[in-house]
Each structure stands twice: as structure tokens, then as C-alpha cells.
């Protein structure tokens, strides 16, 4: 399949601050997740591929044409920014129709398309309320509506799930996935791995302005599985539990935490570890109150990958 988005040695600096460095990649239709910790360069990358900022070095092409200053390509792209970007005094309806007019649609066309987009995000009933009265979830959905209203071929969503409650997240994920089978190119950025995992298996890992890895999400999952994990267990008898853990070869380290009745265990096989806990708990009559993974996040994976 031909790539829709291509970048060649794309680099961007903000004064002395590196935004993105030497990014060369190709993105095909379907959902692609951009994954990276906060400040990794995700937003910069998305702004470069949507033609909002000019690269210092390199090029970015959409369907074989360079995006920078090529305004005819902008109609192919729907962009949902990370931060709230609204005109609070306007109603949801005015917001979406107004932005559609900037895509050169006539008033009647803009109204038809706005209605369709608001129906998709389930905001039709609230369309005449001013945006400042919208909840966080409604505002996110409205941002999504303005991105899809002109029926773009490429949809770029910068942290679309930020600040949403679980129900709101589910709604947005469902919306994004509904576009999956239509042949569009969708790019979603996030710093939370499970969010991306819920939408796509194809990911790009960005860290400190560089593309760290690109490919199937299982690759990242495998990295998480194989690198040592720290798991914290709060239980009724941590010393008894620890004496049993040290007999297992997948347990690398056991420490007693400063917190009361808490054990910190380092393992290189989470699956085996998690299957062992219930068995031990029953056999030794240990009451397990809480199990947490303090390092089970994307930053920990990145730290591991960069060898910190």
C-alpha cells in the first residue's frame, strides 16, 4: 500500500530546544499510534505533518506533495489539537460551522456537514449551548467533531483522550475505531500505552525528539514483558511471602518497602509472577490487600530502552 504521509530527515528546533530530530518514516492508511512521554516531540511531529510549522531540516509530504505552504492539501487533513482550543462565547454549532466555512464551504454545505459531525459525536442535542458550559468530555468530542466535519482523508488527533473519564474515553476510542475500516489515515498521539493499544497495533515510539521504534505494538509489549518489573504487594505477612518468592528463578530481587506490610518484588516474567500470587495466597493463608506496578508505564519502558 502506498504511504500517505512521508517524512525525510524531518527536524525542528525551537531556539536551543530540540523539538524533533531526523525523522524519516512512512505512514500508510489505517490507525497509527504516536506514543511517547510528555515532551517527547509528538505534538511537534503532528504539527509538522499538518503543515502548521515549517521544519528546519527535511521534508514532509502528503500523498507525494510537500505540505508546507501547500494550502490545497490542508483540506485533506482534520486536526484535533491537544489543548482546549475553543471560542468559549460561541455555541458548539457556531464553532463547527464557522470552522467549516474556513474550508471554503457555503453556509448550507457547512450546516449539513456540521450537523453530520455533531451527530457522530452525539452532540446534536447540545449544539446550541455555549461551549463554556460544556463538560470536559463534551469539549473533547466537539474538538473531534471539528476535525472530522469536512470529511478529511487524514485525521490527526493529538492526545484526544486527555482528561477524559473512562466513559468519555470509551466513546472517543469507539469513534476513532469506527473510522478504521474506511481507508482513512488516522494518527493518534498519546503518552499512555493502553490507550493506543485499545485503538491500533501499529505504533511509532517517539522519545526526546527521535523516532525510537516503529512497528507492531506487540514489539513494545514484548519489551515490557522481558524487562525487569517492580511490583509492590501489600499483604498480611510480607516476610512469609518473600521467603516463598526467592525460591523462584523469575524473581530477581525482593525488598521490604518503608510502607507498612509492603513488599517490592523485581521479576522478569510478569505472567508467571501473577499466576503464582493467588496460589501462594491460598496455600500460605496470606491476605493480599493491594498489588501495584510502580514502573509499569511508558516512561519506564523508554528508560529501559535507552539504558538508564
Amino acid at each position, binding site marked *: *500500500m502506498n504511504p500517505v504521509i512521508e517524512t525525510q530527515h524531518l527536524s525542528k528546533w*525551537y*531556539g536551543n*530546544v530540540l*523539538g524533533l530530530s531526523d525523522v524519516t518514516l512512512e505512514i*500508510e*492508511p*489505517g490507525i497509527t499510534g504516536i506514543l511517547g512521554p510528555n*515532551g517527547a516531540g509528538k505534538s*511537534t511531529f503532528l*504539527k509538522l505533518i*499538518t*503543515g*502548521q*510549522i515549517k521544519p528546519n531540516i527535511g521534508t514532509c509530504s502528503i500523498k507525494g506533495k510537500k505540505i508546507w505552504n501547500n*494550502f*490545497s492539501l*490542508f*483540506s485533506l*487533513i482534520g*486536526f484535533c*489539537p491537544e*489543548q*482546549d*482550543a*475553543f*471560542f*468559549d*462565547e*460561541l455555541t458548539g454549532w*457556531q464553532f463547527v460551522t*464557522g*470552522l467549516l*466555512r*474556513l*474550508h*471554503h464551504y457555503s453556509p448550507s454545505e457547512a450546516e449539513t456537514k456540521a450537523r453530520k459531525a455533531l451527530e457522530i459525536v452525539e452532540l446534536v442535542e447540545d449544539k446550541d449551548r455555549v461551549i463554556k458550559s460544556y463538560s470536559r468530555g463534551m469539549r473533547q468530542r466537539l474538538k473531534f467533531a*471539528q476535525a472530522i466535519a469536512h*470529511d*478529511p*482523508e487524514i485525521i490527526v488527533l493529538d492526545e484526544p483522550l486527555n482528561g477524559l473519564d473512562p466513559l468519555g474515553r470509551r466513546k472517543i476510542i469507539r469513534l476513532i475505531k469506527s*473510522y478504521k*475500516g*474506511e*481507508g*482513512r489515515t488516522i494518527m493518534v498521539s498519546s503518552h499512555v500505552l493502553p490507550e493506543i493499544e485499545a485503538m491500533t497495533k501499529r505504533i511509532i515510539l517517539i522519545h526526546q525528539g527521535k523516532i525510537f521504534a516503529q512497528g507492531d505494538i506487540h514489539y513494545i509489549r514484548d519489551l515490557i514483558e522481558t524487562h525487569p518489573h517492580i511490583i509492590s504487594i501489600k499483604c498480611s505477612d510480607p516476610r512469609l511471602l518473600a521467603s516463598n518468592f526467592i525460591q523462584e528463578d523469575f524473581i530477581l530481587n525482593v525488598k521490604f518497602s518503608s510502607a507498612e506490610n509492603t513488599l517490592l518484588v523485581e521479576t522478569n516474567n510478569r505472567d508467571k509472577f501473577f499466576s503464582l500470587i493467588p496460589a501462594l495466597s491460598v496455600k500460605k493463608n496470606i491476605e493480599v490487600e493491594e498489588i501495584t506496578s510502580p514502573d509499569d508505564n511508558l516512561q519506564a519502558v523508554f528508560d529501559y530502552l535507552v539504558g538508564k
Partner: protein
Amino acid sequence: MTIKEKGYAHWDGEFLDKKLPWWPITRYGIKLTFRKKFFKLFFPMSLLPAVVFLAGIYVSERLEDFKFLFRDSVPILQIDPAYFKTYLTEGFLLFIMVIAVIFCGSGLISDDLKHNSLQLYFSRPLKKRDYFLGKTAVIVFFLFLLTLVPGLVFFIMKMIFAGSFKFFLSYPWLPLSVIAYSVLVTAFFSFYALFISSLNKNRRYVAILIFGIYVGSDILREIFYDIFHNHYFSLLSIRGNIQQVGAAIFDQKTPYPIHWILSLLVLTAICVLAWFVLKKKVRGVEIVK
């Protein structure tokens, strides 16, 4: 990847530039200004001077009917370029224009900066030039209602009340002066308001700055003039500079004994500075520090 259903129709045609891509920005700007409670009160009042001057033109043609009102002050009602200059360049109209600019212009860019909405504009087929045009047109709309429209209406009504083209034949250049002055003063206030609006995310501060710099520049001129008795300090005053250039455009005696070109240069310099700042401030990315 399997495409189950192609949900969009890709258009391969030639992209045509819309004639006025900035118009939606202007339309919303005007709409939002009229939504302001105080502006609804202010706007009809801002047109009162124009109504009074229009009445003056009517009376000037019916002096016999109204002479009981005037007696010795008939010369005031001589309709000539000075009459137009008086309306367009006097302090009261400039003051009204500043207030109008505060209502319609203070939030134009500052609100976009506050709401992060620049990225919404610049991710669409909208050039930076169109963005500025759209914002400027909001100010132009309101200022032309105070300058260009009344100026041309005065001219037309004078001929209608007189029932002849004698006035036009006497001053054929006057409509051009009205247009030139209106364009100049509107362009200046547009740059001035957009420049200040791009400096802060809070439109209240912007409003205070717009008013404060205008009034402050006048106060500064007064202070320096009182100390040094040098007329060149009138170049410090925004009002003074506009009045200088206005008088020259209407072929009248300038209020200060210095060359009006200097005032024009000062106004132009402010516009150029404003343009550079605007270009720097308005861009589609937040700065990472």
C-alpha cells in the same frame, strides 16, 4: 489492511482559491462585537456626531429658515473641506474611534492566544495573510462606519440638499480626501489594535493598553511641550499626528507648525513595527521554553 467500506469520497479536482477566505473570521468578529452589552449602547451614540453634522449640512442649505437660531454664528455652517476636516479629525471622533476599537479589536488576537485557537485556523486552508485580513476587516467595518460612510454621506447629502452639483464642482477632490483620510486612520488603528491585542492573552489588559497608550501619548506631548515649548513634541501624540496628516489631506492649516510628512512617518513607523510584532506573535505553534 482490509478496507471494509470506503467512507469518504476523495476529490481529485483542482483546488480553487475562494475569493474571500477571511470573510468567516470577519463575520464572527462583527457578530461577537454586537453581542457585547455595552457596545449595543455605545454604537448608536457613536453615530450621533455624524447625525449632528448631517443636520448642520441641512441647516446650511436652509439658513433663512433657521437664522433665528444662529444670528452671528452663520460662518460656522459654511460647508467646505474644513467642515469635513472638523468632523473627521477632531478629538471627539478620534476618541469615539478608540472606544470602538477597544470594543471590536481588543479581543481579536488576544482571545485566539488565550484559547489556543491559532492552530485551528492554521490547520485549515487559511493563509496567515487571510487571518490578518479577517481580523483587520472587523476593525475596518466599524471605523468606516464612523469615517468613510459619514464622510461620503455628507458629500452626497450636501448636493441633494443644495439640489445642484455646484459643491462637487467646487471641491471635486473632496471625496478622495475623505477616502484617503478614512483609509489612513482606519489602517493605523487596525495595526495599532491588532498589535496590542497580540501582546497579551487578557483582553481587558489589551483594552487598557489601547486606551492608555492613546491618551498617554497625548499627555506626554503636553508635558514635553510645556517644558521645552517645542512643537516637534507633537510627534509623540497619536492624536496630534493623525490631526496633522488629516489637515494636510483636507488641504487645511495643520494644527502644529511642523511638516505633516513627519507625522505621517511616525504613523507609518508604528504600523511597520506593529506588522513585525504581529508576524512574530501570530504563528501556529506554542513556544517550548
